[in-house]
């Protein structure tokens, strides 16, 4: 055992020394684990493209990004995280799209002293009791957009909502988030099967419920199926949803069925600020498509990182953490700051789906919540 330990110590000391020499001062190695293949790859690709656009625009050559595909499988994500930490020896990690993958990777990554910047997932466990000094969420806490939808519904005078989400934790959180800010009655509450594709039964229930509005959280293909079927059903109760089902990548597949639907988002392509206008224009020039919500989140994440690098060396964890906390960067969302639990405090808007020429997109019609933090911040003792 002693020889082994000695051997190990010698080898690792050598490795440390060589790292220090190679990396020099101020360099940051970023490990991005995101979904690039299989179902849901569109989201990961957008986050990656947004992130890389920001790095490219900055011209900062001290950032090295290693990108890996998690295939949306938690066990793959965990191994990639091990690889990033153990063999790539990255300083900062980012990229994960899905809450369940984030729950698998983030706690152990931050426990090993890495910084994690979340460009999408914001599970409540990481915002409340499980918050960590090294974890920064640049997107939203999962409940935020649902809370905003609830607030919007109350403000718009809706009194009898029918609410619906898939039967899994994010779905349950979604409905709870909505109910937290919604003051009216519930005409019905339905959990659908995760991955369900046919919603005839639920639409019949909606028709029979006498609701004045329908709030639904059905990410990805589920939302597309639901909206198309809803449009063909003749039921004309207005729909409200979070931005995920009305995103740039998805809208073209939904088509007319989505027109006029109100949805809540912390970002929109028509947000009126300089950073955003430049981002939308440059993203289109670079990738030949309109940016999505996810692209904006990737872009902001990279800018946050770059802003901290200006101020501190990543090897000095305390200083770097403080620099991140300041959130001193120009966000595509306008105002952006971090709460005590390192989750965003930001405005959340209400958008409406419109058609611009041949392209379906969103325009902002109001603000649902201003400077909104999340419901779990108080449980976090930082």
């Amino acid at each position, binding site marked *: 055992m002693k020889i082994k330990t000695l051997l190990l110590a010698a080898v690792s000391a050598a490795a440390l020394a060589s790292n220090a020499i190679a990396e020099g001062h101020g360099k940051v190695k970023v490990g991005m684990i995101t979904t690039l293949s299989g179902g849901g790859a569109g989201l990961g690709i957008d986050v990656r493209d947004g992130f890389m656009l920001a790095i490219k625009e900055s011209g900062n050559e001290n950032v090295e990004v290693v990108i890996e595909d998690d295939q949306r499988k938690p066990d793959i994500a965990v191994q990639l995280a091990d690889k990033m930490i153990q063999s790539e020896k990255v300083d900062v990690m980012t990229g994960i799209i899905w809450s369940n993958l984030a729950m698998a990777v983030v706690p152990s990554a931050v426990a090993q002293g890495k910084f994690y910047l979340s460009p999408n997932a914001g599970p409540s466990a990481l915002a409340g009791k499980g918050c960590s000094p090294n974890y920064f969420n640049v997107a939203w806490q999962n409940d935020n957009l649902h809370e905003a939808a609830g607030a919007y519904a109350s403000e718009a005078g809706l009194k009898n909502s029918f609410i619906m989400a898939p039967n899994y934790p994010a779905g349950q959180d979604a409905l709870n988030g909505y109910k937290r800010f919604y003051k009216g009655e519930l005409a019905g509450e339905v959990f*659908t099967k995760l991955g369900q594709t046919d919603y005839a039964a639920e639409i019949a229930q909606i028709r029979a419920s006498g609701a004045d509005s329908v709030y639904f959280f059905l990410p990805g293909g589920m939302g597309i199926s639901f909206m198309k079927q809803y449009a063909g059903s003749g039921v004309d109760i207005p729909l409200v949803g979070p931005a995920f089902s009305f995103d740039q990548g998805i809208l073209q597949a939904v088509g007319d069925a989505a027109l006029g639907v109100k949805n809540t988002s912390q970002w929109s392509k028509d947000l009126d600020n300089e950073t955003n206008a430049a981002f939308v224009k440059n993203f289109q020039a670079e990738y030949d498509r309109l940016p999505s919500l996810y692209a904006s989140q990737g872009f902001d994440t990279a800018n946050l990182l770059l802003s901290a690098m200006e101020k501190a060396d990543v090897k000095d964890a305390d200083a770097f953490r403080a620099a991140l906390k300041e959130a001193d960067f120009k966000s595509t969302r306008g105002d952006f700051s971090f709460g005590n639990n390192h989750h965003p405090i930001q405005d959340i808007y209400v958008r409406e789906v419109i058609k611009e020429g041949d392209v379906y997109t969103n325009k902002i019609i109001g603000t649902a919540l201003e400077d909104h933090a999340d419901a779990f911040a108080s449980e976090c003792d930082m």
Partner: protein
Amino acid sequence: MSTVLIIEQILNGLQFGVMLFLMAAGLTLIFGVMGLINLAHGSLYMVGAFAAAAVAASTGSFLLALAASLAAAAIVGAIIELVVIRRLYDRDHLDQVLATFALILIFSETTRWLFGSFPLFLDVPEALSGTVTLPGGIAYSSYRLMIISVGIIVAVGLFLLISKTRIGMRIRAGENDREMIGALGVDISKLYTLIFALGAALAGLSGALVGAIQSVQVGMGEPVLILAFVVIVIGGIGSIKGALVGAILVGLTDTLGRVMLPLFFANFMEQSSATSVGSSLASMSIYILMAAVLIFKPTGLFGRA
């Protein structure tokens, strides 16, 4: 819950069942005649949907899109039969499962490479986008009624094909005895290619029909594939009648389970957890149905021992 709503939900269950039948018919036909488990059937469903979406986008015609889905799936089906599938007829089920699993990987990623990661657009035709009022005041989607009729036409067509035509006779002969059909002087490999292409075309058609009201995206085939397998196993593998009965049973169980179970649990627990428990059980319901059927009838409802 009102009677009208219950009737509407039963109609929904039937319609879901018919959608499953379109998919299951080809699967069970291929198994019955060639003894092949084809996991790649879901990929043919996806091929049909993508072909329809692509043609609809460039021509704007839904009928042309349907034709394209049939043709594309049949051609792709014939090609994989010639290149891969025919080498598997004499293999055990294990090899078949693995080889067709490999085909899924190839098809899914190739499609993603060709069409990208985002869902494609395919909409119902203008003429069918509204609703019809049925007796009793039920407003029902015309497109869904169309799906039900297509399903019935396909079911009747298949029954006629198998019981009345020469090809059907050969199919039945092939089911009973592969040697005999060879002895009859039928070119067995041509017949197999034909049947496989027919099954593929049915899968492609259902992909296109369903794609119009769901989302056309990579990986859309696998959940349906599993359901279609549940259907044909319940009905008895190889039996078209079994596939029809199984499909409708699954459609009804799934739809009514989703609606009734949460209501049932609400009788003795608080609303929110009743919804959650009820939906959990509902998502397992068809698998419970399948296990129960197999435990009492180990070869399905209409299967031969």
